[in-house]
Structure formats: structure tokens, C-alpha cells
């Protein structure tokens, strides 16, 4: 088992450009946006309180302690504070470096935690083949009915409590992963653009059909789509969990897989990934071999709705559903992380027959927050309940959201009462219905 901390003799917070640390002028405007501060009303649980702690560490006034570590992991990383901050504090960078500092000092290290970090960050989410292999096994387990047998048998009682509680919410793995559904190059006769597609990791296993829908929506708008094989995790999971070294490894791997010069854009449909993918410049700033390409990459990465609106996507003539009421939950890493709020709504508004009802507190975190629902189940459940309450008020039977974590969290929350769907899936479906309608007419 590698101790990843030995790879990086860095002082993360101390080595940051001091202007980033100094940018917070502690006016307090972030406080009402922060889910954890609103819960406890305790300053250390607020963005400005956390930044004060980070600054104290950068200044050498505070040691990296277990308490500090726990605080950094109590933060959701939802970035609502970034939207609220008039002073333009770069909280994502502070946050990632603070978590890296925590891991570097090992203040939270316990054998069990070390094992899970090793298994997930260093193995599963660093090795695309392994993730797919495990995904395949999980699919067999779920599809064969073994899963039901195991639950009935009571074997689960032998599993630690926190995992046992999570088992029923394990996402359903797709029969076909992205590479089986999407060809490496898919083109259209009237080609206007050439774009790359990021398939993601969770997205690839659990929502490969969303990737397929993304390709269909792009093709319908004159985009040739290049989907490199076996892409794996983009490294956002590593960066958000304090392993910037492995995140950089993942970033280099992606940069190697895409022929950037010949692409107009690189498309992602997962908000959490997109918010990370747009900042490779920072992640690879000390790497002369990759720095230039990272800059070009950052310019070209686009969320799918952002790209569709940018190229003035075609409004479908058919509807995706039978006149349904829909509401839209904004993934934190789309609205706060990337400042994208209008475009997904534009996509939804473009679909005939859909009635978009605005969701109260649509930009509030649903509690998924990467793996927060696993690490901090109590706080995550509170946020999930608030979200479900707001959804119920809309009376919507469809909930659109553009991030796999939110998708699972909200679907778990609403159960069978409503269906969660990616906006681009609805658009793709509407385009498909057009063809069917035309076919019927010609027949």
C-alpha cells in the first residue's frame, strides 16, 4: 500500500500565492450561503472561518490538527460561497489545498480510512480497467438477482454499519458502458464542429445512456464527436479529496488522450467533473511539458448545455415527454463552480410541451457533494430532506439535473414519486421523437 503523502514534500497552503490567502476581507457576505454555517451558526463552520484557519496555517500560527482536518471535511465543497463572495476569493483552490494539507500531515489517518482511500483514489479511480471490471461484477451482482438473495440472507449484518446502510443506495450499474454505446468517431454529413467527449467514471458506469444522449444531441447540431476509449476518472475526485498529485496524473492522462488542436471543444455532461476540468492550468502549473496544453484545454472544456447554447442549438420540433411539469435542480459545481445557470434552462425551455417550474432554493446543495453523503451522512441527509421538500412544492414529476452525484442523491430522496433526468437526455429524446414523427408521416 503506497502512502501517497510521501510523494509530495509540499506545503500546500504555505506555498499558495499569498494574494489568494489574503483575498478574503472577512465581510461575512458568504455566511448566509453556507449550508454548514446555517446549520450550526459556528464561525469555524463558515467559509470565512475556514479561510481564517487556512490563513493561520499559511502564516505558521496554527498547526495542521485533527480538528482542522475534520473541519475541512465538514465543508461540502459546494462553492455556494464563491457565488456569494463579492471580493472574488478563489475558494476552490484554497479548499483543495487545505484538504491536501490535511492528507499530507495525515491528521485524520486511521487504518480503515487509509485502506478506503488507497482502494478508491489509488486503485479504482486511477485505473480505468479496474473500475470497469468492478462495475461489471457489480452489474452481474445486481442483474442476476444475487443482490436480493444477499439482502434476504442477512449476510449484510457482517458488514460494517456505515457500509450496510449505504448498500441499498448503491447505484444501478448499466449493462453497457459508454464505449459499447458510442463509437470512437461519430460524424454527420453537414459537419460544423468537431468536439471531444468526456465519458467520466461514475457517469460511464451508471449513466452511460446520458453519454449516448449527449452524443445524439451533439450530432443533431452538426458536431462530429470523438470519444477516446477507456478514459477513466478525470481526477476531480482526487483533487476534492486532498490528493493533488494523483489528480495531476489523471489530468496528464486525459491531455494525452485528446487531440486538442483538432477539436473545437471538449464536452462534459457531469458538473462535478466540469468544474474541475476547467482548471488544469492551475493543477499543472509547475509542469513545463503540459502547461501550454493545459491552458488550451481549460479554454476548450465546456459543459454540454454551455456548448449547445454557444453554438445556438436547434430547437426540437417534437416533445420529449407528454407535456410534463419539470423542475430544475442546479448542481453546485455547475452554478457555483462554473457560473452556468441560464443554459440548462434554455435547453429545457426549448423542448416543446415541457412546463418548467422553478425550484425554490434551486442552487442549494442536495447533500451529495462528491462523496459527502458517505463521509458525513447526517448533514447530507438534512440537505437531501430540504431539497425533497422544495421539489414536492413544485408538483413536478420530472427533475432535471446535470450531475451524476445530484442525480443519485435526489432520486434516492424522492423515491418513485418523480424521475430525475439529465437535461440533455430530454433534448436527445425530443430529437429522436422528431425522426419517429417524420417516419410515421412518410409511411
Amino acid at each position, binding site marked *: 500500500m503506497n502512502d501517497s503523502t510521501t510523494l509530495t514534500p509540499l506545503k500546500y497552503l504555505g506555498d499558495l500565492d499569498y*494574494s489568494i490567502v489574503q483575498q478574503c476581507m472577512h465581510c461575512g*457576505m458568504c455566511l448566509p450561503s453556507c449550508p454548514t454555517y446555517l446549520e450550526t451558526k*459556528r464561525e469555524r463552520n463558515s467559509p470565512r472561518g475556514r479561510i481564517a*484557519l487556512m490563513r493561520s496555517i499559511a502564516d505558521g500560527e*496554527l498547526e495542521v490538527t485533527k480538528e482542522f482536518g475534520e473541519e475541512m471535511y465538514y465543508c461540502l465543497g459546494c462553492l455556494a460561497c464563491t457565488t456569494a463572495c463579492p471580493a472574488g476569493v478563489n475558494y476552490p483552490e484554497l479548499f483543495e489545498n487545505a484538504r491536501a494539507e490535511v492528507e499530507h500531515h495525515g491528521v485524520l489517518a486511521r487504518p480503515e480510512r487509509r485502506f478506503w482511500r488507497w482502494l478508491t483514489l489509488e486503485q479504482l479511480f486511477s485505473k480505468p480497467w479496474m473500475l470497469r471490471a468492478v462495475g461489471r461484477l457489480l452489474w452481474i451482482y445486481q442483474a442476476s438477482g444475487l443482490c436480493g438473495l444477499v439482502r434476504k440472507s442477512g449476510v449484510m449484518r457482517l458488514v460494517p454499519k456505515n457500509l450496510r446502510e449505504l448498500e441499498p443506495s448503491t447505484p444501478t450499474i448499466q449493462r453497457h458502458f459508454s464505449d459499447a454505446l458510442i463509437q470512437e468517431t461519430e460524424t454527420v454529413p453537414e459537419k460544423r464542429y468537431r468536439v471531444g467527449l468526456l465519458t467520466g467514471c461514475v457517469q460511464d458506469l451508471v449513466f452511460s445512456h446520458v453519454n449516448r444522449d449527449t452524443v445524439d444531441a451533439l450530432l443533431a447540431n452538426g458536431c462530429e464527436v470523438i470519444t477516446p476509449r477507456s478514459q477513466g476518472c478525470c481526477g476531480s475526485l482526487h483533487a476534492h479529496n486532498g490528493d493533488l498529485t494523483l489528480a495531476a496524473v489523471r489530468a496528464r492522462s486525459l491531455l494525452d488522450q485528446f487531440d486538442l488542436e483538432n477539436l473545437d471543444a471538449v464536452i462534459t455532461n457531469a458538473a462535478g467533473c466540469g468544474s474541475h476540468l476547467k482548471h488544469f492550468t492551475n493543477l499543472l502549473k509547475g509542469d513545463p511539458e503540459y502547461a501550454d496544453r493545459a491552458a488550451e484545454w481549460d479554454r476548450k472544456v465546456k459543459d454540454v448545455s454551455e456548448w449547445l447554447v454557444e453554438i445556438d442549438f436547434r430547437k426540437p420540433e417534437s416533445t420529449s415527454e407528454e407535456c410534463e411539469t419539470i423542475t430544475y435542480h442546479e448542481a453546485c459545481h455547475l452554478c457555483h463552480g462554473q457560473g452556468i445557470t441560464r443554459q440548462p434552462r434554455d435547453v429545457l425551455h426549448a423542448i416543446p410541451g415541457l412546463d418548467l417550474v422553478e425550484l425554490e432554493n434551486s442552487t442549494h446543495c442536495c447533500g451529495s457533494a462528491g462523496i459527502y453523503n458517505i463521509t458525513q451522512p447526517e448533514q447530507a441527509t438534512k440537505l437531501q430532506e430540504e431539497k425533497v421538500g422544495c421539489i414536492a412544492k413544485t408538483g413536478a414529476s420530472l427533475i432535471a439535473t446535470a450531475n451524476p452525484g445530484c442525480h443519485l442523491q435526489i432520486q434516492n430522496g424522492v423515491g418513485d414519486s418523480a424521475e430525475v433526468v439529465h437535461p440533455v437526455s430530454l433534448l436527445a429524446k425530443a430529437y429522436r421523437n422528431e425522426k419517429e414523427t417524420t417516419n410515421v408521416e412518410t409511411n
Partner: protein
Amino acid sequence: MAAERDFSKGSRLYESLSQLVGEEDLFTEPEDLIPYGFDGTAALRHKATCVVSPRTTEAVSGIMKLASAEGIPIVTRGSGTGLSGGSIPVDGGIVLCLVQMDQILEVDPANLTILAEPGVITKAIDDAAHPHGLFYPPDPGSMKISTIGGNVANNSGGLRGLKYGVTRDYVMGMEVVLPSGEIAWLGSKCVKDVAGYSMKDMFIGSEGTLGIITKVLLKLVPRPKARRTLLASFDSMEDAARTVSHIIERQIIPCTLEFLDKKTCGCVEDYAKVGLPTEAAAIVLMETDGPESVVNDEADAMALIAEENGAISVEKAKDDAHAVRLASARRTAFSALARIRPTTILEDVTVPRSHLVEIVSFVEEVAAKYDLDIATFGHFGDGNVHPTILTDETNKEEMERVEHALSDIFDKTIELGGTITGEHGVGLAKKPFLPRQLIDASYQLLRQVKGAIDPQGLLNPGKIFDQAEKS
């Protein structure tokens, strides 16, 4: 030595305090103390030694009694958004944070009042009044997070001061815990009440130096039916200032006459993206509210006056939502200015409105004289200007020039019959300059009042002024 007082877990004081508030509301670890070491004021920090967050008046009273018996200083705070360093901790003291006392206790539509605990957020007061068709007008820039207790203790102003006045104009009564730990109710729901000194007025704006406010009774007014918002742009700050002076001369009292210079506009637009003109030298945001016919007349008259005074353009807000966005954007001005330089020193000088042009021009001269980057915005209708020095606290030489500039601006303000602080309070930041303004017996009077109410000097010591004469 007071600074060495032991509050650590297991100590005698820790045990006493945890009996009063419970361990979950008592903080003594560095990770908890560091974030209470500052408020919204630039370059002022002092680590707290102990923080308590009581939930009842009885607990506050108990803490005060303990502090009185032990001689422990108490610094009261709410959300810590103050702009004069008033809630910076003192050595060996207790920081008393009232944000957990956050209940609205009563809305009384028959008497047009609201009774709230001190930790209620300012905006929540108005939100509670709204369904009854009532209105709580004071709207400090930080209203989404500032607490009503802090507003009363600092007599906060806001964007609507011109027509609606400041916090003081709405306080009808309060419950305070006195330095002895005794509880006193001051004021009443009566519109007229002259029974004894108006003691509540003594505590409004006392910055936590006289007592701890544990309940606030506020006056509400009917909610205005209509509202018009205009945005006028100018080639020069003087034209903008003159426009404001002329509006008031013509006896038009809109609720808001806000001014932003080019630099401030640029920063606010960069953050809020509400379509502010970023090329104009100055803009004035005007808002009038009241009955439909009156607001239309006033809006037309103000537009005309702006044009007479050389406005490049006068735009109307598209709709109510746009008007709210413009006002909200304006409230972020101070924080948004932090985008330019690391340290943002915000001033709060106020002059009689007829001297607006003079003070604005003077600030420009001072910026040139000391080679400093100064942005100016403020509540022009109130004569309240916020020259904001954009600097870097780590640059000693530049900070010296900042000191000189501030000194010059304060002297000029006083010469014009103004005040060194219109709405932020004295705290620590303006304390050295207060004797320049209060030159007669009034300065000594502050000490006499403090000595009479808080003879031990326990409440927020060293803020506003030093209790003992320095030899």
C-alpha cells in the same frame, strides 16, 4: 495578568461557563477561537480566548454576573460584520456571541411593532413584517447576515436613510443585561413615553460598552405601494454630487440616492453583472417609493434634475426584479472593491449635504497628493460618503501614506461641520480620531456615562475611547 486567565477545558472558569450555556455552546480550542478574532474591518485582528454562544437572557445574565465577580471583560458580537472593529476580542476576555438567540417573538400588527431576539438577521425582520403589509426600512449593506442586536448597538444606517432614517428611529424598547448582570427593560410600545430619561437611546449606538441587548422592540411602518428606480450616469463626480444637492434643495426626499464612482462601478459590475455603466465617471442610483402617483412625479422630477446637471444618461429600472438587483448589487460595493488590492480600508465620513461637492473633490485631491488608489461610493442623499482606500497592509511605506490621507480627510470633514463616522461606529478604527471631533466637554461626558453604568469597565473595554485618561 488578565491575558493569562485560564478558560481551557477542565479549568474553573470553563466549568462555570459550561454550567451556564452547556459545553456545545462554549468554545476554547484554537480552531474555534481564530475565526472569532475579527469582524468586517480590514487589518484588525486579535485572537479570542473564549467564546460563548448563549441561547437565553438568563444565560447572558449568568455570564455577566460571573464576569462581574471575576473581573472578566465581555465583548458582545452578532454575525461579526461590523466595520469599525467594535467586536474585536480583548485579551483574557469572553466573546459573547448572540447569533443563537435568533427568534422573532412577536409581530403586533395592531400596534405596528415587532419584538425580536438580538441574533435575528436584519432582513428576517422585514421578511416577517411583509405578510402584514408592514415594512422595516433600515437596510445596512450587510442586511442578509447582520443581526438586529448589532444594528441597534451600532445604530446602523443603510441605503434608505434619506427618507426613512436609521435604526434609532425604529427602536421603541429593549431588554438589556446590565454590567451587574441585572436585567432591565427600557422603553415601551407607546408612541409617547417620557417616563424618566430615554434610557434606550443611551444604549442605541453604544457599541456594546454599556449593556448587552437581549431583546429589541421595533417600530414598523406601512409598506410603500409603489417604487421607481433610476440610474443616472455622469462625466464627473462633481456633476453627480450637484445633482443630489439639487434634488434635496427642491425638497424631494426619495428613499435612496446612492453614488458610485467609476472604480466602484467596475468592481460591482464585475461581480454582480447587472448592467451598470462602467465607462461613466460616476453613477447615481435613485429610488423613490410611496403612492403610485407620487413616485411617478418624483421620478420624473429627479430625471430632469439629473439632466439639468449634465447627466450623460438616465435609465429606468426595467421592472421590480431589476430594481432589486440594482440595489443588491450596490450593497456589495465595499466587498467587491477588495478585487483590486489586498487591503480595503473603508471610511465613513459624513458632511452636511450642502458640502457634498467639496468633500468629494477633497478626497480626489488627497488621493493625488499621497499617490493612493481611492474609490468612493456612498449614500449621497445623507451626505454620507465611503472613500475606500485600496492598499496593502503589508506595505509599510504605503500604509503611512494611508494614515496621512485619513488624517487629512477627517480634518476636512470636521472643518465642514461633519462627522468622522456616519453609520459604522467608532470601535477601534476611529477611536484615535474621536477627540478631534468632540473637542469640548462632550468627550469627557462619554467617560462619565461609561463610569456610571459600567464602573468596572467590563463591557467592550477600549472601544470608542479609553476609560482612563492617558497620562
